[in-house]
C-alpha cells in the first residue's frame, strides 16, 4: 500500500458563536457550540462526505476550513500548511487552491454580471490566464457541459441545474485542488441532480480534485464519496470508508439515520427494520452532558452521561465515538 497523501487535516476543530447581547447573557444565554471538537483528514483525489441533520455543524465545519468563520480552537492543515493563523493576505494564496460551491447557486452569482464576466472575475483577482481569459471562460463552460454562447447570458435566464454548473465552472476557473461542496444538489430535482452528481464525479477524475461534500442526503453521498463522516450536534459520531459505513455502521446514531432514509423499493420498505428516534435535536448551546446523542439514543445507559466519548478505531479505518461500542462490535 502506498503512503497516504493527506491534503487536508482537521484536528480538534471548535467553532463557538458567542452571545453578543449583554441582556441575553444576563438571561443565561450560552454560546452556541456549533462545532465542538471535530477531527478528520482527506486524502488527495478523494471525496469525504460530511453528513448529518440540520444543526449538526457540517456547514460550519466547511466554512471554518475556508476561514469564512473563525474557529475558536483546533487546527486546519492544508497541504502541510496550518491555515489557522494565516492573515487575510496570506490566506488569499490558499483561496485559489480551496474553492467552495453552495446550495443556492442563484444567490452565489452576481445577478448584474453576465455569466462570462462572472467566470472571468476569479481569473482577474488571482491574475491567472492573462490575455487568454475569454478562451479560458469558454473552455470552462465546455467542461461543465454548457454551450459557449452562455457567456452573454445572465443568471436569471438560467435554470437551477445550469446555474449550479456555472458556479462549478467558476470554482474550477482557478484550478483548485480542494472544493468544499455545501449541499450542491439539494435544491435540484432528481433528474437534474443526477446530471450534476455525474458531472462532479467526472470532473473529479479528470482534474484529480479533492472534495469535502457536505450533505444531508446519505444516498447521494454513497454515490459520490470514498469516506464518510457522520456528525451529530457538533461532533463526529462515526467516520469510515463508504463500504464500512453503508454495509456495517456501528454507531447507534448512524444506524438510526440510515434506517430512516427511504429507499425507492416498496418491497424493501415494507420489510425494513426502522429505528424511529424519539424527540428533537437538543440545542447546541446547551448540549447534553457526556455523549451528545444519549438523549435520543435507543441504547443509552447511565454512564453515557458521564464523559464525552472519543473516536476509537473499531475496524481498520472505521472510527466511532460511543462508550458502548465494544458491546456492539
Amino acid at each position, binding site marked *: 500500500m502506498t503512503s497516504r497523501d493527506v491534503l487536508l487535516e482537521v484536528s480538534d476543530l471548535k467553532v463557538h458563536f458567542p452571545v453578543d447581547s449583554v441582556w441575553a447573557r444576563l438571561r443565561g444565554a450560552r454560546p452556541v457550540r456549533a462545532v465542538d471538537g471535530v477531527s478528520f483528514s482527506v486524502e488527495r483525489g478523494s471525496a469525504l462526505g460530511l453528513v448529518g441533520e440540520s444543526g449538526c455543524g457540517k456547514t460550519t465545519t466547511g466554512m471554518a476550513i475556508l476561514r469564512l468563520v473563525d474557529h475558536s480552537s483546533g487546527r486546519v492543515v492544508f497541504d502541510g500548511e496550518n491555515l489557522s493563523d494565516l492573515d487575510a493576505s496570506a490566506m488569499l494564496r490558499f483561496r485559489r487552491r480551496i474553492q467552495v460551491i453552495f446550495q443556492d447557486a442563484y444567490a452565489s452569482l452576481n445577478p448584474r454580471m453576465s455569466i462570462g464576466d462572472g467566470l472571468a472575475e476569479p481569473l482577474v483577482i488571482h491574475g491567472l490566464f492573462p490575455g487568454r481569459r475569454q478562451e479560458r471562460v469558454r473552455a470552462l463552460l465546455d467542461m461543465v457541459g454548457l454551450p459557449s454562447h452562455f457567456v452573454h447570458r445572465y443568471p436569471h435566464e438560467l435554470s437551477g441545474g445550469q446555474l449550479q454548473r456555472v458556479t462549478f465552472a467558476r470554482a474550477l476557473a482557478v484550478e483548485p485542488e480542494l472544493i468544499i461542496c455545501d449541499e450542491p444538489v439539494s435544491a435540484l*430535482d432528481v433528474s437534474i441532480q443526477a446530471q450534476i452528481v455525474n458531472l462532479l464525479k467526472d470532473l473529479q477524475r479528470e482534474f484529480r480534485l479533492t472534495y469535502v461534500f457536505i450533505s444531508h442526503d446519505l444516498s447521494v453521498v454513497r454515490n459520490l464519496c470514498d469516506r464518510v463522516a457522520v456528525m451529530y450536534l457538533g461532533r463526529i459520531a462515526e467516520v469510515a470508508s463508504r463500504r464500512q459505513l453503508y454495509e456495517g455502521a456501528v454507531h447507534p446514531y448512524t444506524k438510526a439515520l440510515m434506517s430512516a432514509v427511504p429507499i425507492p*423499493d416498496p418491497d424493501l420498505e415494507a420489510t425494513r427494520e*426502522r429505528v424511529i428516534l424519539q424527540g428533537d435535536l437538543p440545542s447546541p448551546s446547551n448540549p447534553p452532558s457526556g455523549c451528545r446523542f444519549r438523549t435520543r439514543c435507543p441504547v443509552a445507559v447511565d454512564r453515557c452521561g458521564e464523559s464525552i466519548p472519543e473516536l476509537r478505531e473499531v475496524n481498520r479505518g472505521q472510527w466511532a465515538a460511543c462508550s458502548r461500542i465494544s458491546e456492539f462490535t
Partner: protein
Amino acid sequence: MIESAGMEPVLSVRNLHTRFHTEDGIVHAVGGVSFDLLPGKVLGIVGESGSGKSVTALSIMKLVVSPPGEVTADAITLEGEDILGIDEVRARRIRGSRIAMVFQDPMKSLNPVLTIGRQLTEALREHLGLSDRAARDRAIELLDRVGIPMARDRLGDYPHQFSGGMRQRVMIAIALSCNPSVLIADEATTALDVTIQAQIIDLVKRLTEDLGTAVIWISHDLGVVAGICDSVAVMYAGRIVESGPVRDLFHRPSHGYTLGLLGSTPRLDDDEERRLQPIDGLPPSLLDPVPLCPFLPRCRHAVGACREKPPAWRDVADVHGTRCWADLTPYWRATNG
C-alpha cells in the same frame, strides 16, 4: 385512470384542467388529470417541480385564485357529492371538515400571532360546533395523539416556540381534527430531517389507518412514496403519465419518464459502481403544450409512434396504466437491481 375495483371512491376527479392567465400567455399547469381515491387508501402523486402535483391538490381544494387561475373538469366528486360547481360558502364548509390539507412549510401555514390552542380549536368550533370548553378538551386530546408532550401546557404557546417537526405535528392535528374522509399531504415531510421525517410518516400512517382516512400523498421523493402509498400516479408536465399499484409501478415502470426518475435516483442500498442515469435536458414550458408526448424531447426510449401521434392511455397490467407508446419490458430487470 385508477379503476375502483368494486369499491366506491371517496374522491373522484375526471379530466381536471387548471390554467393560469399570465402576461406571457396561458400556462397549462394541469392538463386533463383523472383519478379515483379509494376509502382508507394512500395515493401517491410523484413528479418534479412544475409537474402540476400541487396545483392538482389546490384545484380540488378550490384554493386556486381566479383570476388568474381557471379550473375546469368533467367532474370532481367527494363522497358522491359533486364539489366542482359549489360556491365559496359551501367550499368553506367542506374544507377542513371533510377534506383537509397539510403543506410543506408549517411555519407559513400557521398564524404566527395566534396560539396553537386558538388555531386548533378554530375548526372544531367552526365545523363541529363545539363549545369553547369542549373544543379545548378535544384540542388537548388531539395534541396528545400526535405526540406533543405536555399537551395541556402547550395550548397557549405560539408556533415559533415549536420545532419544525412539532409544528408539522400540530398541522396534522389540525387537519385531522374534524375526522375528514380525505387528507392531502403536499410535500409534508420535505423540509424535515430524515429522522424527523420518519417520525411524521409513522404518525400519519398510524392515525389515518385508525381513522380510516384516505390520503393523497404528494411528494418528489420516490423513497417516501414507496414506503407509504398503496398506489402511485406519476405526473409530468401537468399530466398523469403512469399510474398503478405501488409494487407494480416500481417493478414494472412503463413510461419513459418513470424509468428516467428511477434511473436518476441514488439509493441508500446502491451498488458502489452504479452510475446514475440522468434525464437529459429540461422539462418543457407549459405555455404551449405540444400535442405529442411532453416527455418526447428527453426520452431515451422513444419509438416511431411517439413522433406521430399523442400517446393514448393503455393498460399494462391490472389497474396499471401508462401514456407511453414504447415497450419498456426489456428495462424492467435493470431497475429491479
